[in-house]
């Protein structure tokens, strides 16, 4: 099966006071039609930047540079100009941002904002559009869509706004949905309802999803494959069935054990030290600075290359062995 999205040797950096600061470093990711790919990693590692960079949504105030390619059905998005890309944004690829309030217009009712999306992509108008909006709001668990349609963003709670963003992204039936922390402020009941809905969209229309979340149990439940990012590098891509036991990269193991381990003596588990700063230039593998338990001499001098095996791929000089 050929992939929907192919991210190839992709880098993103910006220039600040005559220095180049790399945020994303030589990423390779494939997303197949109808597949959910989870993206996890430490806060500040570059997940939201990747989400926005795919559609070249520039909100860096500096001069930015993109390298490499992002193919959507074989067409390189990096070769498109802004007008051409605008036809893809919100239509073929939808993105739900991490901070809904900054992307909703405070002056417009919810009804008007969603209708603008339908109008912009020439999908529907008039009462046909109204009915689509009502149905879509029901799909993201609003029992009284009419009250919501009349509301302004500030009149809604945090979780309600997140669901509005999901509705706006799904209503165009995109080929790829990028969901950045969309259910992080929702309780387990509503989270399940929404993700089940997104899942249905995947199977009904073959939509693929890039699911960014800090909630590992959720990722394990909904993703087919998981990409783990650390300091702007993809360090491992692993099939979900193999993720908990068969992860090879030490950072993956460490992150998973923080998320899934039990609290001991009233202390929550965490990884010692912190992720490097964006402008730090690091020689070797960046994880050796976090007291990687498997570090060897090579880790201090050379950055490991991405290596593939049956179940996935990883970037590490001394990975955990395959189980069993």
């Amino acid at each position, binding site marked *: 099966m050929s992939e929907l999205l192919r991210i190839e040797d992709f880098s993103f950096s910006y220039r600040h006071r005559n220095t180049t600061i790399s945020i994303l470093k030589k990423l390779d990711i494939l997303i197949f039609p109808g597949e959910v790919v989870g993206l996890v990693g430490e806060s500040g590692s570059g997940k939201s930047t990747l989400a926005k960079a795919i559609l070249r949504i520039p909100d860096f105030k500096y001069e930015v540079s993109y390298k490499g390619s992002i193919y959507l059905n074989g067409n390189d998005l990096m070769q498109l100009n802004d007008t051409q890309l605008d036809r893809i944004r919100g239509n073929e690829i939808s993105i739900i941002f991490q*901070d809904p309030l900054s992307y909703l217009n405070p002056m417009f009712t919810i009804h008007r904002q969603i209708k603008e999306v339908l109008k912009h992509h020439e999908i529907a108008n008039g009462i046909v559009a109204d009915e689509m909006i009502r149905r879509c709001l029901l799909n993201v668990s609003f029992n009284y869509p009419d009250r919501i349609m009349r509301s302004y963003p500030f009149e809604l709670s*945090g979780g309600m706004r997140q669901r509005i963003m999901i509705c706006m992204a799904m209503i165009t039936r995109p080929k790829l949905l990028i969901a950045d922390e969309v259910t992080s402020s929702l309780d387990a009941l509503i989270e399940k309802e929404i993700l089940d809905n997104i899942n249905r969209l995947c199977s009904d229309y073959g939509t693929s999803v890039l699911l960014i979340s800090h909630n590992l149990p959720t990722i394990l439940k909904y993703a087919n494959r998981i990409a783990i990012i650390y300091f702007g590098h993809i360090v491992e891509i692993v099939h979900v069935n193999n993720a908990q036991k068969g992860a090879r990269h030490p950072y993956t193991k460490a992150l998973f054990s923080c998320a899934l381990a039990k609290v001991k003596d009233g202390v*929550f588990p965490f990884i010692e030290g912190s992720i490097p700063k964006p402008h730090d230039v690091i020689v070797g593998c960046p994880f050796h600075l976090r007291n990687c338990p498997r570090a060897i001499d090579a880790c201090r001098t050379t950055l490991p290359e991405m290596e593939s095996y049956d179940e996935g791929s990883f970037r590490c000089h001394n990975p955990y062995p395959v189980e069993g």
Partner: protein
Amino acid sequence: MTDNIVKIRGLNKTFIRKTLITRHVEYIYAARNVNLDIPRDSFYGLVGETGSGKTTLGKLILRLIEPDSGSIIFDGIDVTRLSQREIRRIRPMFQVIFQNPQSALNPKQRVKQLIGNPIRFQKKLDSKSVEKEVFRLLDEVQLSAEMAEYFPHQLSGGQIQRVEIARALGLKPKLLVADEPVTSLDASIRGHILNLLLQLKKNREFTVLFIGHDLHIMEKMCDILSVMYKGEIVESGSVKQIFNAPTHKYTKKLVSMRYISD
């Protein structure tokens, strides 16, 4: 008799919306006859459906919005009777970590001002000491000292959330309303921040109203738990009690999900 730092009686808040065209009036009961006692030095958890009124209740306690009726006694003072000026005077004693820090933080200020200005203003410290304090706070939430120069739009979601936590902790409040404080953090940093809050509780007078939805975290963090549903507190009790024998239909469903995901 237990010593309660916050005592709420008969608190009500209704949002009224008038739609211009149909002249239709809607009432949203965000707080309905809420009674709540928060024991001093406890971690008090608040859970509930989205839109059930948790953030509204947090803001009411801090008088960030005005109640329609009811009383809120904070440390023996009825804050509903204070003027805004008197409120400002006691503000450093209670702080809030906002749920949507992206919009709560002034976008034109650098991180060092966002965290430092309230300290400078309230504690009347010289710039050197303020700066030192800012660096200490940044370190405490695992942000590097360089981030002091950043503006909010240059930070990731979780970095902003940590700036917000540092800002709120900077004034050493007696009462902290933490509204979904760790939702944008990865498991490792989340663990670190939760440990930090538990540490503060050990070291000094520190009460937290912890608004959250992750039951695993609530179980570990909170001494008491209240459940909100459509503006009402529908049940309260020790975490154990609520998890083992939930009574309200919403709580029952929520608790059953907890075992599925285990």
